[in-house]
């Protein structure tokens, strides 16, 4: 742990203590989404929450915003527990969440209107915020008339105008194209650096590692299933931070290493067990076989020749963390690659796969699928045993639900269907909602 403490002398604005979130499944078991999360946010800080989807970081953000309540633990804002949306905490949304029937000005005024601010004051502050965020001249435009970048500027202005102490950002740049995101991020950091923003601290949820390193003073890295903080990295580099700067690169590498590290305290069941929980209850994140083959091909090709740095390959393949990690993990699960220390390395089978033609690849994939993915093996066994060689989806869905939440089970089945189809290991008829052995001729 290497927490920076630029403002340790100041009392935290926000103090998250031992926050847990769990859901009760139909069979009465608990499903833990967030586990004992602690976090302090001090004035002057931008803190990033970094993790994959399913790590509960958005859930945590919503708890801080008062939109959701923790199952246990407490979120303290200025010494008071947050139970409902608080006045000093404003949020910026991934999808912008603007009201399409209101003009830019009306959208920005919304929060002030709700507070009952006088008309003159409201108009003055809104125009100021619009000015500050670079929306001058667009006051009477409707959101539909604006580009994505301009829409998110409205989102920022709407949050800033209420003069909150804290702004919560839920992946605010992820719906924008790379260039627009860069510009908006830069503008925001400039205003923040110049002290022009009427806010004291920022909490940013993201799955973009570069963005996190560029923007934040401190990073909390989340693991998934259940979501918990696995490490904390303090960043003391001065702004602006260019991605080509070697110190920035080194930090990005370090974050990759932390994110691919095995969670502490995990039991290793064998020398080759590198994947957590390998029963049929493993949640499978959906990765298309196209992405899998693409990644194998990229890693096997020169200059990597079978071993690549994850950040480098991510940049080259234009893969977001949200796609890269699940893909790497899927290859690891299938024993086609190993991931450790921020590197991905093809196994012998992985190299063979890269060399093979379509048919050989499919055969190899099928063999590994049935051998190493227990759910695939289970489905295949059931289909083989039945005289009809078919089985309804609900049969496996019910089994999975003993281990995971409904949407996770749905996703896992979707993944196995897609992999099974690619491997031609079994067929699935969505219309009849049934697995079978027969492939249409």
């Amino acid at each position, binding site marked *: 742990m290497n927490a920076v403490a630029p403002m340790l002398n100041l009392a935290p604005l926000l103090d998250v203590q031992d926050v847990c979130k769990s859901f009760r499944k139909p069979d009465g078991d608990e499903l833990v989404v967030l586990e004992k999360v602690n976090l302090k946010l001090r004035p002057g800080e931008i803190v990033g929450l970094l993790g994959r989807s399913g790590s509960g970081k958005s859930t945590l953000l*919503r708890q801080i*915003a*008062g*939109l959701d309540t923790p199952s246990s633990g407490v979120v303290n804002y200025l010494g008071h527990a947050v*139970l*409902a*949306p608080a*006045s000093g*905490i*404003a*949020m910026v*949304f*991934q*999808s912008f*969440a603007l*009201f*399409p*029937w*209101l003009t830019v000005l009306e959208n920005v005024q*919304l*929060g002030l*209107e*709700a*507070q*009952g601010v006088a*008309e*003159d004051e409201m*108009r003055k502050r809104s125009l100021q915020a619009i000015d500050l965020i670079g929306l001058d001249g667009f006051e009477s435009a*409707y959101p*539909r008339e604006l580009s994505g970048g301009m829409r998110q500027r409205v989102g920022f202005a*709407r949050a800033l105008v*209420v003069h909150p102490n804290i702004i919560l950002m839920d992946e605010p740049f992820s719906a924008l194209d790379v260039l627009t995101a860069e510009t908006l991020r830069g503008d925001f950091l400039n205003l923040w650096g110049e002290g022009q923003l009427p806010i004291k601290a920022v909490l940013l949820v993201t799955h973009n590692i570069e963005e996190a390193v560029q923007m934040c003073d401190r990073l909390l890295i989340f693991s998934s299933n259940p979501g918990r903080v696995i490490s904390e990295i303090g960043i003391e580099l001065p702004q602006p931070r260019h991605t080509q700067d070697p110190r920035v690169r080194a930090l990005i590498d370090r974050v990759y290493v932390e994110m691919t590290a095995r969670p502490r305290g995990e039991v290793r069941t064998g020398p080759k067990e590198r994947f957590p929980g390998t029963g049929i209850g493993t949640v499978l994140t959906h990765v298309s076989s196209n992405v899998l083959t693409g990644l194998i091909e990229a890693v096997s090709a020169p200059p990597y020749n079978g071993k690549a740095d994850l950040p480098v390959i991510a940049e080259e393949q234009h893969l977001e963390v949200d796609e890269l990690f699940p893909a790497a993990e899927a290859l690891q699960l299938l024993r086609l690659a190993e991931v450790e220390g921020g590197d991905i390395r093809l196994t012998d089978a992985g190299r063979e796969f890269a060399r093979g033609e379509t048919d050989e690849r499919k055969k190899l994939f099928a063999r590994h699928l049935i051998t190493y993915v227990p759910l695939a093996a289970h489905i295949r066994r059931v289909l083989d045993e039945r005289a009809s060689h078919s089985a309804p989806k609900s049969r496996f869905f019910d089994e999975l639900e003993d281990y995971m939440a409904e949407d996770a089970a749905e996703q896992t089945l979707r993944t196995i269907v897609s992999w099974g189809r690619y491997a031609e290991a079994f067929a699935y008829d*969505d*219309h009849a909602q049934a697995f079978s052995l027969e492939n249409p001729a």
Partner: protein
Amino acid sequence: MRFERLPIAVLRTRYVPGGWDLLAFALVFVFFIYCAQAAHGLTGSLARLQATPISLDPTALFGYSARTALRMVLAMLASLLFTFTYATLCAKSHRAEVILVPLLDFLQSVPILGFSFTILFFLQLTPGRVAGAELAAIFLIFTSQAWNMAFSFYHSLRSIPDEMVEAARNFQLSPWMRFWRLEVPFAMPALIWNMMVSMSGGWFFLVFSEAITVGHTTVSLPGVGSYIALAIEQKSLAAIGWAIAAMFVVILAFDQLLFRPLMASADWFRLEQEAGFTPSHSWALTMMRRSSLLRFLSSGFAYLLHAGVKPVAVWGAAGPRPPAVWRSRRLDYAWYTVLILIGIGAVWKIAWFVLSEVQLAEIGRVLLYGLITLVRVSVLIALASLVWVPIGVWVGLRPRVASVVQPIAQFLAAFPANLFFPIVVSAIVILKLTPDIWLSPLMILGTQWYILFNVIVGASAIAPDLRYAGENLGVRGWLWWRRVALPAVFPFYVTGAITASGGSWNASINAEVAAWGTETVRAHGLGAYIADSTAAGDFQRNVLGIMVLSLLVVTLNRLFWRPLYARAERKFRIS
């Protein structure tokens, strides 16, 4: 910036009256005059109303049209009020939802005649005054308008994107502000479409709601409906023609002055432009936007509403959560128990009430009637589909034709079946046809258009790329229909067919007994049974018939239409 508080309309434009203003001025004041005249009749005494019978003089139709239109508008306002309260309650409270939503489902299937007994209640409310009868008529129109609007609103409230709801909560909008700023605007496009459908429904049953006969009580309120009823009784073809003309004008006025502008402004409420979506145009909306007079009036109104929002916004700001006891599971169970007990009590009461008059054998016969009507509805929907699906696809692929056909279909949907009685009854009597077969087309008369509407919308939404791909691959003829057109419009078709089927059940009452002068033609069926029992004032049989009809409609929806719709949604969705 001293002018900040003035409405935008005053700030931005110079007040110079233009051509649009003159038109707007004339329309606004003609509207006020008509309202005043029509409202005048409300306060009169019932005796005087019955002393001045309906006149078949065409000039009388001016006044009648105004009164009918006013009733329609009042019923529409009542429906909106109902929608905003009932549907909101359903969407906000799970405990209310469990009972109110199924209740709405049943109410929707109860035909307008099922409510006609309420006239006795309304007449007693204001003894000897016309107001009671007017209220009854408005209530009857309301019952043919409100339910699908409420459903649409409820559905919209439940499908607001999560992040928008979260934004509203994060910025601490009071419930009142959230309703007007988020929920109502979001629901608007669907609600407006349903208002149009409701309006057509109101016209279709107009005769029933204005010329009310329950047992010995007969009231004929001045209006187009009563005019039609009298024209049929007196076999006056000329009067039928005048009534059609009057209806045409009023429906056209509603369309041009109310629904077109609403549709065009609803485009602002859409989240994104959908594929195949062409923005609507409305001269009336253009007039409202271009005319400084109307803009001044409307912005003044908006300003008032705006000002009115504020105090509520302050006291209504995000309050503390309700205590844990209120949210507990036990209270849920207690509530369900109460509901179940009420349900048992109600069933007991109904059974006791109906069986006091009706033999068990008759219940069997009513069920049989239900099956006959079921066969009729099914065959008609199938026939209408065979006709309108190909035509709808053809029209939908040609935007110019579609823009002409759609308003016509809309007008035809509003056309009361009674207006066709002369033709059908005469034909049946002269040609000695079987009423059981030849009365049936009347059932689908108003409702088949929903199939056409929806198929047109579906066909115009087919992505151009799909069509080009089809052409590129040389897909033609029957293969094209099977692989391209029919799958693409299927979900839309199902939506239309559900509306058409529900409407046909209700219309059976209007269609299975048809009269022209002294000539009455009757088919066997549930609709005829209900119509007869209402005319005879036989409350028990009326309740029995309506119950059977509701049960059949709701069962059919649950067992057939809903699964079909779910399947269409799953199978033909791209992502």
